[in-house]
């Protein structure tokens, strides 16, 4: 019998029950209080303020000055670089996310076939995901150095002229994808658990019917793991929309500039703006150029796009919001 804090009764409510209900409500309030404060202070308030700032010119040192829709107008018509940032982020959403999903699924499927030592390999495959993103990016940029890095040296040994990787605008983002695949561990773990959770009897029945492997995947495996795939896809998209660290570290390191006294704003996007993601441009505009009003406008637009994906998730999330029965 679940605790019913809002049970209804016919007739007047006796005093002891009223007191109990009030105590229960207070309990809930007490438990929720810190989070409610956090919700207002760190979520609702900043959202409202960001919206306000997006209509102003604000450089952090002087007070905000209202300019109406000029920031949005600037975004639409006067900031060519932002479109490059939008394209780069969109590229990541469209390429990086599916790549990780497919690779993650592939790796976990291979792992399900390993009977002995499965735990060891699972740990091994997970380890790269534990590396701090900065460290992993540094290592990759170093490894993919066009002249001296082991990747190109190895390719040269088998006769392939390696590309310039992080120094080539056409290859910088693919190199970031490779970095993302190396850290596939977190997705792999979830997929693996889900794959192992598929009811065995369904497989047995299929084996008896002589179902081919591809059909088995399509009709048994896939429907059973679909919620996990959805979760992975949506969180992957959200992460792609926020992609900042790896791209900025890769750009600063690969460009070789020492940035004495210049700050981080001058090297982001190297090479040729190909790694400039939307959040990085927001950061540059806000905290390098101090056009905080414009940065807020960019933030509002990013929020709008994230909301769309949140709505998609919430539709799917009905699947993992528990029903009444499961609370019993």
């Amino acid at each position: 019998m679940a605790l019913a804090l809002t049970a209804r009764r016919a007739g007047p409510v006796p005093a002891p029950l009223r007191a109990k209900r009030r105590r229960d409500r207070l309990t809930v309030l007490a438990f929720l209080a810190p989070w409610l404060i956090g919700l207002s202070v760190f979520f609702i308030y900043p959202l409202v303020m960001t919206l306000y700032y997006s209509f102003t010119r604000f450089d952090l040192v002087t007070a905000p000055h209202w300019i109406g829709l000029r920031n949005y107008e600037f975004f639409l018509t006067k900031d060519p670089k932002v479109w490059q940032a939008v394209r780069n982020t969109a590229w990541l959403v469209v390429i990086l996310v599916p790549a990780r999903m497919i690779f993650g699924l592939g790796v976990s499927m291979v792992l399900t076939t390993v009977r002995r030592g499965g735990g060891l390999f699972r740990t091994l495959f997970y380890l790269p995901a534990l590396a701090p993103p900065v460290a992993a990016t540094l290592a990759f940029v170093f490894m993919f150095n066009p002249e001296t890095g082991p990747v190109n040296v190895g390719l040269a040994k088998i006769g392939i002229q390696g590309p310039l990787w992080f120094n080539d605008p056409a290859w910088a983002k693919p190199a970031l994808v490779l970095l993302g695949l190396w850290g596939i561990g977190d997705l792999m773990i979830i997929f693996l658990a889900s794959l192992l959770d598929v009811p065995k009897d369904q497989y047995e029945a299929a084996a008896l019917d002589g179902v081919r492997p591809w059909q088995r995947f399509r009709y048994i495996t896939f429907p059973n793991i679909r919620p996990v795939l959805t979760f992975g896809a949506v969180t992957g998209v959200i992460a792609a929309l926020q992609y900042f660290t790896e791209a900025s570290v890769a750009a600063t390191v690969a460009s070789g500039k020492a940035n004495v006294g210049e700050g981080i704003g001058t090297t982001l996007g190297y090479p040729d703006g190909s790694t400039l993601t939307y959040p990085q441009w927001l950061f540059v505009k806000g905290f390098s150029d101090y056009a905080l009003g414009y940065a807020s406008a960019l933030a509002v637009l990013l929020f709008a796009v994230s909301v769309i994906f949140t709505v998609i998730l919430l539709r799917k999330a009905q699947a993992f919001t528990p029903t009444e029965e499961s609370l019993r």
Partner: protein
Amino acid sequence: MKRQRFFATLGAGLALATVAACTGSSTAAPSVPPSPTAKVTGTVEFWHFFTGREEAAIKTAVADFHTKYPDITVNVHGGQDDEKMLKAIAAGQPIDLALSSTTDRAGKFCQSGAFKDLKGYIDRDKLDLTQFPDAVLAYTQFNGVRCTLPMLSDVYGLYYNKAMLAAAGVNEPPKTLGELTALAKKLTVLNPDGSIKVAGFVPLMGWYENAPAHFAPSYGSKWLNADATSAIGGDPTWQEMAKWQKDLVDYYGVDKLTKFTSGLGQEFSADNAFEKGKVAMVIDGEYRSAFVTAEAPTLPYATAPFPTGDNHTDLYGGGYITGNIMGIGKGSTNPEAAWLLMKYLTTDTDAMVKLANSIKNVPTTKAALSSPKLEADANYTTFLKIFADPHSSTTPASPTGSQYQDTMADFFTKWQTGKVSDLQAALNDVDKQINDALALATGP
């Protein structure tokens, strides 16, 4: 009656001034600060951008100041770039004295009030502004508001490897960019597989100190009009520069150049490509000499003014000047002490000469420039001469900071990789971006 009217007018005037100050930019009309009645004491939070060897030199200068003013303690914070300083000022952190590595943000600092207007202090203490050369006076103020003073300058010129030139039978540095190009081709050494082993000159924009701003004095190119709008599209010398640059890039091949540069050492490390003999000629600042002495003392190099465009030989002898600027932070809790430290570092001849000798930057007062204590070897003298040359120029101040230079750099990135077909149209587009950004930052 008269007295009443006088006070009424005074009150009205004050009210108007207050209203004007509140609705306009936050830089209110500077009041003349009263002379400190007591001796100035206390702590000065001094933020600067130097690191490593150069930071030690600043610390020495500060120690000397403390000897002269034992009641003032200076807390030094090194490695702070402009971004960090602006953030700290905005957050209300007490920065008393700030040293910025570049003149790019003088416009922003002065216009937004991040640095205090110094007029009051200058007038009160009767600081003689004529002791600073005109060029540096120009980049320390914006729109009539002087919020910074110059402290040490950077001057750019040509560094060349004497041995490599001699091996090719050349004993004089090139004076025009045409000569430079020919010499660069001669000095380049290729590997058996066709990749670059040693480059005569790397023309890629964005590599080391290759920036449009540094090449502008070679052509006398104009950046901005007096109202900070862009003058680039209308100035044909930019097209000359672009064509020269692209010709040399295409000679090497932009892919080969990128592969070559991506394998070179970091600019301010001991693996600097020029110091390691991987590039024969570079454009760099006078500070490079100090690095070479410390990191590659046997390098056979010399310096000269950077070559000019083929049609602009009259400009020879000049170069790009920039410098460091100092200001008193908006939220300073001890502006008088900060002002004393600033005056010491920017005008005390001995202090400036000592600092210039150790960092090998160019001093910014006429007295220091002509001081007998200034150690000037042949290479350093080159830059002193460039600094004094009337053809030298700097990048103008703008409320958008260095945005216009970044836009130009973006253009060159596209241009050198062959993505621009109509040069004039592209430059007009640069104009538009610069003007749009200006309008967003300063419009009604």
